[in-house]
C-alpha cells in the first residue's frame, strides 16, 4: 500500500486517491450515479 503516516486513522491510510478528473468522468457528469452524495466530485453513492 502507499505510504500514509501511521498516525493517520485506518480509513485514511487505506483511502483511494481519486483525481477531480476521475470523479467527473466517473459519473459522466450525472449526479444520479451510485456515488451521488460526495462533494466536488460532484457525485459518488451509497
Amino acid at each position, binding site marked *: 500500500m502507499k505510504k500514509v503516516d501511521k498516525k493517520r486513522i485506518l480509513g485514511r491510510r487505506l483511502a483511494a486517491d481519486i483525481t477531480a478528473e476521475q470523479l467527473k468522468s466517473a*459519473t459522466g457528469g450525472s449526479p444520479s450515479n451510485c456515488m451521488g452524495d460526495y462533494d466536488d466530485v460532484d457525485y459518488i453513492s451509497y
Partner: protein
Amino acid sequence: MTRILIATYPEDIHATMVAAGLEARGHQAVLWQGADFPTRQQASISIGDGGEAAWEVSGPRLRMASNSAFDVIWHRRPVIEPVLPDEMHPGDRIVASRECSIFNRNLWQLIFPGAFWINPLGSRQRSNAKLVQLQEALAAGLTVPPTLCSNDPARIRAFLDRYAGRAIYKPFYPAQWRKQEGSALTFTSTVCRNDLPDDEVLRLTPGIFQQRIAKRHELRLTYMGDLLVAAKLLSQEIPKARLDWKLAFTDLRVLPAEVPAEVDRACRRLLRRLGIVFACLDMIVTPEGDHVFVEVNEMGQFLWLEELNADLRLLDPFCEMLGQARRDFTWRRSPDNLRFADLHDAAMAQQREVFARVHVAKPSYFSVPD
C-alpha cells in the same frame, strides 16, 4: 391526484426527476428543500391551544402546515444539520446548529403521521445501522460474511490473522479527504496487519472488518414496495473495481438479473424485519453461485442503473409507487413508461437555473480537509 412531499436538497437529481415524473403523471409533488432552514425558511410548532400540535413551514417555493393534505412522504434526503451564516459568532454557531437539529427532529416527528411514508421515520435509523442489518439479514435467512466491528487492537489483529490475505476493511460512513489535488476516498479495501496504524490511533476509530468473499459478479437489488428491480453488476471485468464496484464508475456494465426465489424471499423478510418499503440491497454472487448479503442502502441511489442500462426501468415504477401511495402498487413495462433519458436534461437545467438561485445548497457530510 396524489399529493407527495419530498424531503430533499437542491442537488438531488433523484428528487428533481421523480417530482417531474409525478407531475407528468398528474400528481402534485412538493420539494421540501431542507437546507433552506433556517436562513430562507421559517417553521413554527404551536401546542397548547387545544387540539393537536399545529405546525407550519414556509420559504421559497414552499408553504405547508399541519392542515395540508399529503398522501405520501418520500423521506429521501432530509437535511437535519443546518447551514448557518459564516459570519456567526463561533460559539453561537454551535448552539444554533444544535437547536436547529433538535427542532428539525421534533418537527419530523409531528408531520403527516397518517401518510404513506417511504421509509417510515421510526425505521430509518435502525435500518441504516450496518450491524443491525447483518444481524437481521442472518435472521431473515441470508448468508453474511464473518464480520468484526471493533476499535480493540488485539481483536482486530486476531481477526486479520485468522483471515490473513483475505480480509477487507470498510468504514461505517463514506469519507472524502480533500487534498491539494483531488481527493482520498474510502472504499472497501483489503487490509492486513501492516496496514494498521499505531495502536493509540487504531483505537480512536472503530471499523468494519470482514472476510473477503470471492465474486463471480454482484447484485444491486432495488425493492420498491413489492416490486424488485434486480441488476447484475459485472464488477469483476474491471480490475480496480473487483473489491468495490463504485471504483468502476461509469465503466461498470449493468444487466437485468434473475434472483433465486429463496434469496428474494429472504430479502423481503429482511425488509419487513427492518420495517421499510424501499431499499437498495448489495449482494455478492460467489463463483459457486452462492448469494452473500453485503448491506442495505435504506435510501440508496437507484436511477444510475437506468442511466447505465436503458433496458432497466427504475424511474417509472418508483413514480408509480408514490402515485398509488401503496407498497403493493401495480406497474407494467410499456413504451409509455417515464424514462430517465427523457427527463434528465430538463431536471439538470432546473437544478442549475432555478434551484441553485433560489435555494440553499446542502452542506457536505463527507468532505473533510486532509
